[in-house]
Each structure stands twice: as C-alpha cells, then as structure tokens.
C-alpha cells in the first residue's frame, strides 16, 4: 500500500549505500569497533597471559612484551583490557537491546494513541524515569544485593535507558501515522499490533537501528561509570573495573599512568567510534541532513 514503487526503493537504497561508503566517519568508526570486537573475542590468541596471572615485573611501563604495561602486582594490563572488552560489549549489546525494544514498543504505543490516556501515562513514565538518574537507583539496589552479575547490570542499565528512545520513537510515530497508507490499514480493520509492525515500524527501520547504536554506546558508558564507582558486577572483568582497580590502588599517585589511562583511552575510542558510526549513518540515511551538508 506504499506510494513508493519498487524501483524508487531500490534507487534510494543505492543512494544510501553510496553515501555510507563515502563517509569516513562511518568507515573509521566501524573499523575500530570490528577490530576491538575481534580482539576481545579472540583474546587468548593475541595475548599469552590471562588477566589474573602474574605475568611479569611489577609496575613495568609499556614495552614490547607488555604493550600496556603491568599493574602494581605485575599483571598484564593489555590482556586485562582485551578480556574486559568482552563484558563491555556484552553489557552494551544486551542493555542497548532491552532499552531499544522497550523504548520503541512504548514509543509506538504512545505515538499511535497520541493524545489519549495511554499516551499521557507512558509519557509520564518517561518523564519520571528521565528525572531519576540510573546511577542513584543502582546504588540503592546494589546496597542490598549480595551478588551482582553482568546480566543484572545489563538489565538494569537497559531498564533505565529507554526513556529517550521512547520519546524519539513517539515523535516519529506521530508524524508517520497520518500517512494515507496508515489510514487505509486502519479503515480496513487491521489489528493495531499488525498495523504498527507493518506500516510504522517497517518505515522506521533505519531510524531504529540508529537508536540501537546510540543506546549501545549509552549503555557501555553507563555500565563503565557504574563499574568505575564500584557498583559493577561482583565478579568478572570489564574496562570500567580495570579503571576502578587502578584508581583504588592509587595508580596516579604512584606514577603508574598506563594502568588507568591506556584502558580508559580504549574505552573512549570505542564510545567515540559508536558515535561516529551513528553520525555517519544518520548522514547517509537522512537525505535532509545530506542536503544540509551539501549547502554549507
């Protein structure tokens, strides 16, 4: 029931791919993400040490044998970083997935029933969750939980990151739902579930991917901050926890700058890469932004 025929769809798709290929931001960001992902998955191949192992001399600065140096106790920081990346990716992925699904679902509902009581209630929940900071809730929860795992962290980070996704999806839905093809589906008594899925979600697919990427990096950052504060999982290793260890043992005051700064640099570069991919994708998929850039 779409107004656009198949040839146009193919054309615009090619256009977007072309724009994506010509975007150095998208390429550079994706390149770094893939590299770190491969490094973290195949960590045992790239480093001979495990993160807990006493691998070499204590407090050694970066060298060929230990690219990121060693800790106060002689553990290899490079392998800690590689192994820690896995948890960072995992929490970011699942947290981002939960936040995107929840936010998109509620955003569709609120947008579709725009102006009704359902919309009001969902938006009120959005506003309440936007005001209560995730970090504060997590502090309360973690004060009582004896054992915290990465799954719990992902769930909590996801549960408190959905509001802005819901807000964004809602306003997109509001502008999409008055299209003729949506009206046609409505008068032909298509169930709401199907209508939202076929007519609204399908047309927002690219946008939803974008939301997911931003949520992914948002969850990585939120989880890293929690780990850094000391509210992360009670067992295991993540980039935030490596930094927590470093600051807790006074790495800066002892002059062991590599302990805190190098893993943090990897984390920063990772978040920056996600940001670049999102910006590049936005420019590639959104003709309006492309045009705007062309004008300037």
């Amino acid at each position, binding site marked *: 029931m779409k107004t656009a025929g198949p040839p146009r769809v193919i054309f615009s798709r090619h256009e977007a791919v072309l724009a994506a290929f010509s975007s150095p931001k998208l390429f550079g960001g994706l390149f770094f993400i893939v590299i770190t992902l491969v490094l973290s998955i195949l960590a045992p191949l790239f480093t001979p040490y495990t993160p807990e192992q006493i691998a070499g001399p204590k407090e050694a600065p970066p060298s060929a044998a230990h690219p990121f140096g060693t800790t106060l106790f002689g553990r290899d920081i490079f392998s800690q970083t590689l192994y820690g990346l896995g948890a960072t990716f995992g929490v970011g992925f699942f947290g981002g997935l939960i936040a995107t699904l929840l936010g998109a679902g509620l955003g569709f509902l609120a947008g579709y029933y725009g102006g009704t009581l359902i919309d009001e209630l969902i938006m009120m929940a959005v506003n309440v969750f936007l005001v209560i*900071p995730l*970090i504060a809730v997590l502090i*309360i929860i973690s004060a009582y939980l004896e054992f915290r795992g990465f799954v719990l962290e992902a769930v909590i980070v996801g549960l408190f990151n959905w509001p802005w996704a819901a807000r964004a999806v809602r306003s997109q839905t509001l502008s999409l739902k008055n299209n003729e093809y949506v009206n046609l589906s409505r008068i032909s008594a298509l169930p709401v579930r199907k209508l939202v899925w076929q007519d609204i979600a399908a047309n927002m697919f690219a946008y939803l991917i974008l939301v997911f990427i931003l949520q992914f990096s948002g969850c990585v950052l939120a989880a890293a901050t929690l780990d850094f504060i000391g*509210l992360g999982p009670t067992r295991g290793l993540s980039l935030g926890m490596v930094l927590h260890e470093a*600051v807790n043992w006074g790495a800066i005051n002892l002059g062991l700058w590599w302990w805190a700064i190098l893993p943090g640099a990897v984390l920063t570069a990772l978040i920056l890469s996600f940001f670049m991919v999102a910006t590049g994708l936005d420019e590639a998929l959104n003709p309006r932004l492309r045009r705007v850039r062309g*004008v300037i």
Partner: protein
Amino acid sequence: MKRFLKKKLIIYLVTIVFAVTLNWLIPRLMPGDPISILLSRLGGPGTDQAQIESFFRRSFQLDRPWYEQYLNYWKSLLTGDLGVSIYLYPKPVAAVIGDAIPYDLLLMFPAILGSWFIGNRVGALAAHSRKTDSRVMPLLYALSAAPYFWLAVLLAWFFGILLGITPVQGASSIFILPSLTPAYILDFLHHWLLPFLSLFIVMAGQWAVGMRNLVLYERGSDYSRYLKSLGASSKLIRRYTYRNALLPQVSGLSIRLGQFLAGVVATEIVFSYPGLGYLLYRAILNQDYFLIQGCFLFIVLFMVTANLVVDLIYMLLDPRVRMSLTGEEA
C-alpha cells in the same frame, strides 16, 4: 502557561513519590531479611552489633503492617529525619549530607553554566567557519565521547603528577580550616580547578557538537536562505540562527543532567572531593545504608529542582512550549 506548569509539577510530584517509594520498597523486596543482610555486611571491629540491630529494628518496623510502615517512612522524611549514619555514628544523615552539598554546588553550577555558554559559542563558530570546523571539531568529538572519570584521571596525572602544579586530592589542604579568608579561598580554588575542568571540558564538548549540528540545520532552513537572498549581513544571519538553535539546547540540559550527575560522582571519587558523590562512595564502601538512601533522595531532589528550573527558563524563552504539552508535537 498555567496548564503547562501544572502538568510539569504533577510529573515532578509523581517522580518524588516514586523515588521515595522505591527507597522504601527495595530493601523490603530483596530476598531475605534486610536487617540480617545489613548486619552480616557490617561486622567490622568496633561496631556494637546489638545496639545497631535494635536501631535497625526500630527504623524498619517490620512487625507492623506494610501501610503503617510506609506512612511512618513518609512521616519521618517530612520531619527531616533521614536516620543516623552508621559510618559516622552518631551523626544524623541529614547533617552529613548538608555538609557535603555546598561543595557540590560550587563544583556543578560553574561547570554546567560555563560549559553551556562556551560550548554553544564554539559549536556555532564551527558551524559557520569551515576552518574551525575541520580543525576543532574532531577534538571536540573526542572530548564529548570521553567518560568523565577518564578525563579526570588524565588531568590528574598530567597536571598533578607530571607537571606537579595542582593537588589531586581533597577540597583544601589539611592544615587550613574552612573559613572565608583569602588564604583558604585560594587554596580551595587550587584544589577545585581539576575536578571543575574535567567536568567542564567533557560537557563543553557535548554542547559544541550538538550546537554545531543545530546551527547547520538552521542555516539550511527557509528563513536563513531568505535572509541571505535579501542580502542580509552574515552577522545578522548568525545571530538569528544562534538564537533559534539555542532553544533545543536549553531542553537538552534536562536530558544531559542524569549522565552529568553520574560524571560528577565519578569525578569526585577520582579527586576525593568531599561532595555528595564522594560521600556516596564512602557510604557504599562502608555499607552505610541510611546514608546511601539519603544521598539517593537528595540526588532525586536535585534533579527535580534542576528540571523545574530548566522548564521555567524554557517557558520564558519559548511560548510555543505550551502547545507541545497540550497538543500534538509533530
């Protein structure tokens, strides 16, 4: 105008009730008896177990029906009774938090306001000049992506250890007592500089990146093209686009605040700066549950107040906002 404000006030009221309820509910929902969990975690030397246990029993009142517990919780909150800190026993939680808050305000207000004004200026500049854009923006992108705590560690190492020109711990030297003397104020500012900078730089980067895109968008819009075709000076167009792009940045303040707060907590930990964040950190390390709860309530209270202020400013700046809440947004 009134309707908008009323709606916002209701939302904030619900938020506060929700936060207090959460605060009350979480210990009661956790598996097991909260009192025995807390006691098993405490167990350090020098703590009087029996005394603390009776204190917990009195505060939780688990023998009463739940609605009575809930009402009593509200009653004690409204009378300003947040319980007693265990780690700084017998100092009341409200007093402990009251001591920390001035440090937070001194850190957060300059960081938020300063980064907002300067970040927006730099972003607008980058949008107008290609040279600035290609030279400054990559750096600003990197800064805006940096976690607050990482930048804090970086600054602490560079200025504090490598150059040795700034202290990296506390809010003042040990030998000077807090007072309004020039010596103390200078000492405080010396300690304050690095935590301030680490918050300021990241946030300014975020504002600049946002502002650049907003101004670019405004420059592509019909009114600026029209102005251009009329032959208006670029200075005039700049002023118009800047003002229009500024509005979303005001509402963006309330969205960024949550993340910023997490950054404040982390930064205070890096520098042992005695604000609410560092207090919270020590409360977590010492399992001081009432202190943690009190910090939580104050953080939510701060968020609500800040959001309300942002709403009021936004309302003053943009009359259209009335429509956005009473009618359709799109």
